[in-house]
């Protein structure tokens, strides 16, 4: 059996204890989306600001609200750091890359996704060994994807 140290890596616990980009953004102009895990009741509220149009669109700010376990909270916290300031196209690529890392079946990885830097997010690799926690890890990412879709740039 994989040990707890595979799951609760120090960087994950650090993001859990001190979550980055927590809070709210005025909505509108921010896009507000909610995600929840029906199995455990965890809820997340995500606020997204996008600047620019088309290929020039940039994720200018993301804030996270709601409650969740160490995995969902740290994953969302790291996600905000990874996408803020990045082109929207790269944010989508990061979502695909992350879901691929989580081993989500049928996920459609596109050419070039592998070039997206995962950075600290690699620490969440261990979650794959605890299948029931994968839903926790991807909760924030699905919520971001929904917000980006709604931004429609």
């Amino acid at each position, binding site marked *: *059996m994989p040990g707890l140290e595979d799951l609760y890596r120090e960087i994950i616990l650090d993001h859990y*204890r001190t979550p980055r980009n927590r809070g709210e953004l005025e909505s509108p102009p921010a896009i507000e989306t909610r995600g929840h895990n029906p199995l455990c*009741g*965890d809820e997340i509220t995500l606020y997204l600001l996008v600047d620019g149009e088309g290929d020039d669109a940039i994720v200018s700010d993301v804030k996270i609200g709601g409650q*969740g376990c160490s*995995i969902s909270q740290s994953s969302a916290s790291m996600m905000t750091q990874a996408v803020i300031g990045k082109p929207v196209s790269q944010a989508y690529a990061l979502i695909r890359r992350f879901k691929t890392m989580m081993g989500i079946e049928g996920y459609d990885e596109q050419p070039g996704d592998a070039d997206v830097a995962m950075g600290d997010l690699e620490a969440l690799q261990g979650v794959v060994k605890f299948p029931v926690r994968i839903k926790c890890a991807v909760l924030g990412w699905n919520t971001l994807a929904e917000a980006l879709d709604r931004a429609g740039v």
Partner: protein
Amino acid sequence: MAFDLDVVRKEFPILSRQIDGSPLVYLDSGNTSQKPRRVIDAMTDFLENSYAPINRSSYRLAGEATEAFEAGRRAVARLVNASSPDEIIFTKNATESMNLIARSWGGANLGEGDVVLLTHMEHHANIVPWQMLRDERGIEIRWVPLTADGQLDLTDLDQLLDGAKVFSFTAMSNVLGTIPPVAKLCAAAHDAGALAVVDACQYVPHNATDVQAWGADLVAFSSHKMCGPSGIGMLWGRLELLDAMPPFLGGGNMIDTVTLDGYTTAPVPAKFEAGTPPIVEAVGLRAAVEFLEDLGMADIRRHEMDLTRYALDTLNGRFGDEITIYGPDDVEVRGGVLSFAFRDLHPHDVSQILDERNVCVRAGHHCAKPLMQVLGVQSTTRASFYLYNGTDDVDALADALAGATDIFGF
């Protein structure tokens, strides 16, 4: 057979399983219970020697299978003191039993503005079917609130029941363990002219049950929480009430006759048992009932009261302010269900850490999200006991919780 924990445990094959070299500490029986050898053997034996359709074919084997199935019904009737086996309806699970009540009785008797009274500690199975009726036909749902220690606050019960057509409540909360005064609540419902519906899923496996002494009208419960197989649930109802209710699902077995123009229904219980029922499951359920009867429901309840007292004292004693256990402290009015908050840890993380030591608990909303809102939490960790649990299991839980701090360093 006197209640002897060591003997009881030997009846459950899964309890001898080890994961990563250490024993299983199964504290999730409020979710579903483990199965004794005799239940497994009864189902295997039936499948190997007696399996056939029931109520349809006239050869000897089919008669034998029908008799085995009906013996399950008689055992359940005996367990809850039904006045006739015909008052026991087999369903898929207790959730289906609750939906049957809302669809059949509610469908025939509830219209716009009619009031259904529920409580704040109900399982989703006793909430959503009524909300579906509300959305379809505009019934009103009222709620009995809770006291600070998680018991029903009955101060305004008479006003809440005023004009109500149904009072539907749990006989034991799956989150708080709270056991309300069921007979008193049934009497109050009847005084107000309301139907008394009892969700007894958590109650029947752990307590001697007498539906007639309760004075209830309809009672739902399930097999899989009382050492029986999953896939079969029960509804008990007073015969004249069941006779008057329209059918729930249509199809084979539930009809008296069918023509091109229409159908007539079979008498109960067949009226509510459309299609091939859970045959093998009824056979296993009978073995489970006989197992519980051999141990004695009063002795099972006594064992669990002692264990719950020990668990409350052990966890509060070891962790003090670091643990909040919801629900009443008095084990006379609570069953062996302990939902708690531990330090600042999220229940998902608590259960993950406990799993490292094979301590199996449930983390989440326990299908009682409205109650979570009332408690002001998103989710809890829940340890729930059954007849095979002992003080060693509680100690294992406490030891595993003590280890949680090392990882999170809060």
